[in-house]
C-alpha cells in the first residue's frame, strides 16, 4: 500500500513536470469552464464551438482543455484553480456565477490570464466579455414587424433582468418602426430551462393571438410548438431550424470563436491586457441563423440593411426618441442610450403589454 502510494506520487510528479515542460516549449494551454453540458444545444455548446475554433485557427501553438457542467459556487473555484495550477496560461470561465470564484483564483495565480463571460469584476489578469445580443434582437424585430398578420408578438421570457428586458425593448422598438400597430405579449416562465413550461407559455401566447413566438429561454420547445401550430418562431443561442423547419424565421446566435482566437493570440504574442469587451455584429460575436426561405425578399433586404447599418454605426437600436410605458422620454431625440443605461435597463419601452414583474 505504502509503495503503491509512493509510486502514484512519483507518477503524479512526473506528470506535473511534463505539464510544465510542455508549457515551457511555448505551447499555450487554454482552459474552459462550462456551466452546462456541451450537448445543451445552446449556451455551453456555443462556447465549446469557440474552443474548437481556437484549435483550428492556432493548431500546434495551443492545446485546449474543458470541464463541463461545473456548478456555480465552491466547485467552480476548485475547478478553475485546478486548471490554473496545471499549466494553463489562459482560462475562460463562461457563466455569470463564476465571477467571484474566477476573481479569487486570479489573485492566487497572477501569471495566468483569466477571461470571464458576462460579469463586471476585473483584475490586472482578468478580463470580462459579453455579446450585444440586443443588436440581433433589433434585426429580428424588423423581420417580425413585417411578418406578423395578427400584430401580436409572443415572447417567452426567463427572468426580469436587464439582459432580457433589453432584448424585449430592442424587439418592440424595431417592430414598431416598421409597423406602428404592433403589440408584444410577454410571458415569464421563471426558468432558463424547462421545456414543458416553455412549450406551455408558447401555446398560451398563440392561443391569445400571437402569430410569432420569440424566446429568451434555452430549450427548443417553443420553436417546436410554433411548428405544430403553424405560426412563426425565432430561435435562441443556436440555429434551431430543424426543430421547426417551416416556423423558424431565423435565430440570434452566439459566436465566440473570433474573440477566443484573438485573446489566445494576444497571450502568445505577449500583448494580452485586462479589458472589458462588449461586442455585437461588427466583430461577428453575434450572428443570425440563415433566414427562412419563406421571408419575402424585401424583408430580407430590410433585415440585411439594418444589420449592416448597425455594423457601420449608422443605426443604433436604442436611438432617441424613446419613451417608456408611461410616456416619459428616456432617450431624447438625437441621442443614443449609453452602455451604462443599456447594462442596467429595467423599464419597458412604449408598446410592450403588461408590467415587469418585481
Amino acid at each position: 500500500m505504502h509503495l503503491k502510494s509512493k509510486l502514484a506520487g512519483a507518477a503524479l510528479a512526473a506528470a506535473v513536470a511534463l505539464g510544465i515542460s510542455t508549457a515551457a516549449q511555448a505551447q499555450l494551454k487554454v482552459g474552459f469552464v462550462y456551466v452546462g453540458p456541451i450537448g445543451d444545444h445552446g449556451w455551453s455548446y456555443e462556447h465549446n464551438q469557440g474552443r474548437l475554433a481556437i484549435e483550428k485557427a492556432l493548431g500546434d501553438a495551443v492545446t485546449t482543455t474543458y470541464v463541463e457542467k461545473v456548478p456555480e459556487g465552491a466547485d467552480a473555484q476548485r475547478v478553475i484553480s485546478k486548471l490554473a495550477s496545471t499549466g494553463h496560461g489562459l482560462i475562460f470561465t463562461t457563466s455569470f456565477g463564476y465571477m467571484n470564484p474566477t476573481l479569487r483564483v486570479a489573485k492566487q495565480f497572477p501569471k495566468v490570464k483569466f477571461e470571464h463571460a458576462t460579469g463586471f469584476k476585473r483584475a490586472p489578469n482578468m478580463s470580462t466579455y459579453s455579446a450585444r445580443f440586443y443588436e440581433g434582437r433589433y434585426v429580428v424585430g424588423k423581420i417580425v414587424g413585417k411578418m406578423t398578420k395578427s400584430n401580436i408578438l409572443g415572447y417567452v421570457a426567463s427572468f426580469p433582468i436587464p439582459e432580457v428586458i433589453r432584448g424585449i425593448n430592442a424587439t418592440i422598438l424595431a417592430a414598431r418602426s416598421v409597423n406602428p400597430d404592433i403589440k408584444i405579449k410577454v410571458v415569464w416562465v421563471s426558468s432558463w430551462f424547462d421545456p414543458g413550461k416553455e412549450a406551455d407559455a408558447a401555446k398560451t401566447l398563440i392561443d391569445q393571438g400571437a402569430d410569432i413566438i420569440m424566446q429568451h429561454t434555452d430549450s427548443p420547445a417553443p420553436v417546436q410548438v410554433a411548428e405544430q401550430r403553424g405560426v412563426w418562431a425565432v430561435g435562441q443561442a443556436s440555429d434551431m431550424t430543424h426543430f421547426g423547419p417551416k416556423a423558424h424565421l431565423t435565430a440570434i446566435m452566439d459566436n465566440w470563436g473570433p474573440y477566443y482566437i484573438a485573446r489566445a493570440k494576444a497571450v502568445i504574442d505577449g500583448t494580452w491586457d485586462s479589458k472589458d469587451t462588449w461586442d455585437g455584429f461588427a466583430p461577428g460575436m453575434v450572428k443570425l441563423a440563415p433566414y427562412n426561405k419563406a421571408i419575402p425578399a424585401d424583408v430580407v433586404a430590410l433585415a440585411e440593411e439594418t444589420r449592416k447599418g448597425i455594423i457601420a454605426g449608422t443605426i443604433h437600436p436604442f436611438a432617441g426618441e424613446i419613451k417608456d410605458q408611461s410616456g416619459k422620454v428616456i432617450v431624447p431625440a438625437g441621442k443614443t442610450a449609453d452602455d451604462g443605461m443599456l447594462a442596467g435597463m429595467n423599464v419597458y419601452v412604449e408598446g410592450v403589454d403588461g408590467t415587469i414583474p418585481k
Partner: protein
Amino acid sequence: MIDWLVPALLTIVTAATPLVFAAVGETVVEKAGVLNLGVEGMMIIGAIAAFAVAVSTGSGTLAVLAGAVAGLLLALIFGLLTVYLQSNQVATGLALTIFGLGLSALIGHSYVGKTFAGLPKLDIPGITSIPVIGPLLFGHDALVYLSVVSVILVTWFLNRTRAGLLVRAVGENHDAAHSIGYSVTLIRLGAILFGGALAGIGGAYLSVAYTPLWVENMTAGRGWIALALVVFASWKPWRAFFGAYLFGGITIIQLYAQGMGVEVSAQFLSMLPYLATVIVLVIISRDKARARLNAPACLGRNFHASG
C-alpha cells in the same frame, strides 16, 4: 372567452398527464408500504428510453413501452436494494433519482438536437370537430386516455380485488400479512415495479408527446410534484388525478393571466401551484385521526421475516 378557454383546457391536460401517471404509480407503491423517492429518476430514464426508441424506430407504441420498461428496470434496482437487502428507503430513493438523472444524461448525449414528430392525436371525423366537447373529449393522444384508464383500473384494483387487498394489507401491517402466509417481499417488489413502469410512461409522455425532444433534466422536478400529489391525495388514485389537474391548471392559468396582462408578479404566480399543494396538505391533515387512517401504517418501514 370560449375561444381561448378550450385551448387552455387542452394545455392543462398535457401538463397534468405526466403527473397523473407518476402519482398513480407511486400511490400503489406507497399503499404497499414502500416510500420510493426515486420518481424523478424513473421518469427521466423513461423519457430518454422512449425518445431513443422513438427516434430509431419511429413508433410511438414501442417508445412508450420502452419508457415503461426503463422505469421498471430502475425500480427493480430500488426493489432489490430495499426489499431484499434492507437498505434505507429514503436514501435509496434519493440515490435512484440522482442515478437516473446522470444515467439519462449519459445515454442521451447523442440524442440532443434530434426530433420526433410526436404521438398522433385522436381524430374521429365529425366528432372531434364538435365545438368545445369534441376537442376536449376526443382530441388527445392515446396516453391521455391511458392515464384516465390507469386511474380507474388502479382504484378498482386497490379497492375491489383480492390482490389489491393484499397490497394494502402489506402496507398496513406487514408482520400480520407475513404471519398468515403472504410473501411481503414479493408483493412489495411487484408494487415497486408497477410504480416504476408508470413513472417511466409519465417520462415517456414528456419526451414523445408533451415536448417531443430530448434535453438533459427535462423532467424539471415533476417527479417531486408527483410525490407531493400522493400525500395531497391522501393515497387515493382518483384524488391524485384531480390533484394533477389542479396543479396543471394553476400552472397554465398563471401563464394565461400573464399573457392577458394581469398585474401579478410572475414569481408569485409560479409559486401558486406549490402554495395550493401546501394549503390542501394542511387542510387534509388537520384531522389527525383521519390523516392517519389514510396513510399506510407501515409506510417507509423495511420488513424482515425475523421480526
